């Protein structure tokens, strides 16, 4: 078990370094000059040079790369040239908002996707199945940015049921920082009104983010359920007189959950990527928004940092999925 954990951590580190190298290379394919941007419109060439040297941008690319990787090993993600702050610090500040959003969206996706998938497998080819099929594929096909705007218009602008954007209203001070997840922190602090308003704020972006995820969870769960329901041991269970409900809700579901879990892991990463769009639409102060605004100002250290962070969360999520696999499937529980 210890060696297992050790191996996992090693792989994780290796992958992280790989991602860092990959993104570093990618973001430096074309020469951009962020120093020019932050120096201001009227800055003279020597002023730009000052900034360039301050951020090591005057060095050759290989040199920059070596410096960057060296810093990375020491846990330093570099400094954002636009905000002049360490990237790690900024990523840590924005990450809880993103995670909160992703968690809520994932929760929605699982809670709705799994039962719907189950039902459409049981009533395969029935009207419900046809409806969920179109519904779920629509979920994947909906452009998140467009869908977000439409929801904003409907629920925030027209009906005024929910806020347009952001995490909290202006007057509401965020609760004391514990986890950074407002929903959790507000409960710990016992501020129910804060909990309630932050819930109102998170609903729309979470729905938009969860939609494709919900859809694919539904699809996978349905497909697996269908396959499992045709499998020999389910036939045997039927032949032994076990009730249909029990077969579907207990036996088959547990078996079908394995690939569904894999999909959840996959979708977790995908969601982190999609926050780029959803956070832009909903002004959600998370790492996606941070990445977009940095990318648009050619400030690449944060882009690399965010990519790395997303990769990190993704790998962690998948490790958790692996563990859950082992927990569910006794065949994987060796030694």
């Amino acid at each position, binding site marked *: 078990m210890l060696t297992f954990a050790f191996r996992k951590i090693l792989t994780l580190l290796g992958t992280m370094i790989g991602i860092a190298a990959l993104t570093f290379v990618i973001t430096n394919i074309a020469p951009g000059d962020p120093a020019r941007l932050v120096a201001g419109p009227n800055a003279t060439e020597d002023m730009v040079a000052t900034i360039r040297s301050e951020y090591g941008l005057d060095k050759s690319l290989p040199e920059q790369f070596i410096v960057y990787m060296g810093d990375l090993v020491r846990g330093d993600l570099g400094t954002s040239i636009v905000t002049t702050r360490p990237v790690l610090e900024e990523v840590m500040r924005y990450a809880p908002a993103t995670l909160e959003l992703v968690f809520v969206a994932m929760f929605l996706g699982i809670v709705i996707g799994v039962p719907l998938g189950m039902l459409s497998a049981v009533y395969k080819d029935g009207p419900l199945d046809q409806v969920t099929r179109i519904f779920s594929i629509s979920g994947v096909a909906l452009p998140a940015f467009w869908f977000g*705007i439409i929801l904003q218009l409907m629920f925030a602008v027209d009906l005024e049921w929910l806020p347009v954007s952001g995490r909290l209203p202006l007057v509401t001070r965020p609760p004391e920082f514990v986890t950074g997840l407002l929903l959790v922190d507000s409960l710990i602090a016992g501020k129910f009104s804060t909990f309630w308003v932050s819930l109102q704020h998170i609903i729309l972006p979470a729905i938009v983010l969860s939609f494709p995820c919900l859809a694919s969870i539904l699809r996978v769960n349905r497909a697996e359920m269908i396959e499992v329901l045709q499998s020999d041991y389910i036939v045997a269970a039927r032949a032994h007189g076990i009730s249909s409900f029990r077969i579907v809700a207990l036996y088959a579901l547990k078996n079908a959950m394995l690939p569904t879990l894999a999909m959840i892991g996959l979708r977790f990463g995908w969601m982190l990527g999609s926050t780029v769009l959803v956070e832009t639409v909903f002004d959600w102060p998370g790492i996606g928004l941070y990445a977009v605004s940095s990318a648009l100002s050619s400030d690449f250290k944060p882009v690399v940092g965010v990519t790395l962070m997303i990769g990190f969360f993704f790998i962690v999520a998948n490790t958790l999925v692996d563990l859950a696999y082992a927990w569910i499937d006794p065949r994987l529980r060796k030694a």
Partner: protein
Amino acid sequence: MTAAPMNTQIDTPAEASRPLTFRERHASQIRQWRLYAHMFRKSFSSMLGLTLVVLFLLLAAFGPLIVPYPEAASGAINMSAKLQPPSSTYWFGTDEMGADIFSRVIIGARTSLWIGVVITGLAAIVGITLGIIAGYRGGWVRAVIMRITELFLAVPGLALALAIVAALGPGITNCVLALAIVWWPGYVRLVEAKTLSIKEELFIESARSIGAKTPWILWHHILPNCMSPIIVKMSMDMGMAILSAASLGFIGLGAQPPSPEWGSMISVARTYMPDWWWYSLFPGAAIFLTVLGFNLLGDGLRDILDPRSRDR
């Protein structure tokens, strides 16, 4: 369950001395295709997908010929008619420069088709090649290819593509290039896994035992057996690629004006929400229907091509 007897047709004609007709010679394939068609037709959603895709392809092919204002797609402006609501003159209304949105949306199908084909095509060519090599060769070649693939897969494609386009600069070509760069690993993974399992099949060993060279085996045995999932994935990816390009367009890194690309149209149009709702509604609906079409088609194809999900 035991396979249902399929031999209803093969017990047929005794040795015929006359040359066989085309129908007879290809009875097997004809039956197969008829079976596919039959299963496909049974599913409402598959047919809906097919209809949408065919419509999309028709619009991409003939769009410029049938729209009322073809010049709207090449940057003609008419400031006096800007932001008109949908009417009989302008079916989908007009945009902020007075261009007919209907014409732009329809002609945009061609842009989207191009985007989808190039991204999917490039990704598939690179991914299938690498995947098949990795799966068949094994050893360090596989290790290297798969490590790199996993690296790409560990970062969500959109985030990576965003970084690439931001570095290369906005524009449709860069956008397509960036998406192709992040898209191929999916094919590697698919094809590698498939190749690994096919490699263990007896018919591969059988081919080796008659002295087939590796390229022959890859081309005649492995590739055809990988095709079903590849076709399904490509169909779905056509949609997803269009969607991703539109997403980049939305962030402001996609197609440049006046080229009518749906995502970029929404990117501009979102600033005209909610009062000029038609501006973003129609391009958005176009993306949605196109992606939906390709996905439904892919899903329908999976049902008929992938025997796992098929119940005879």
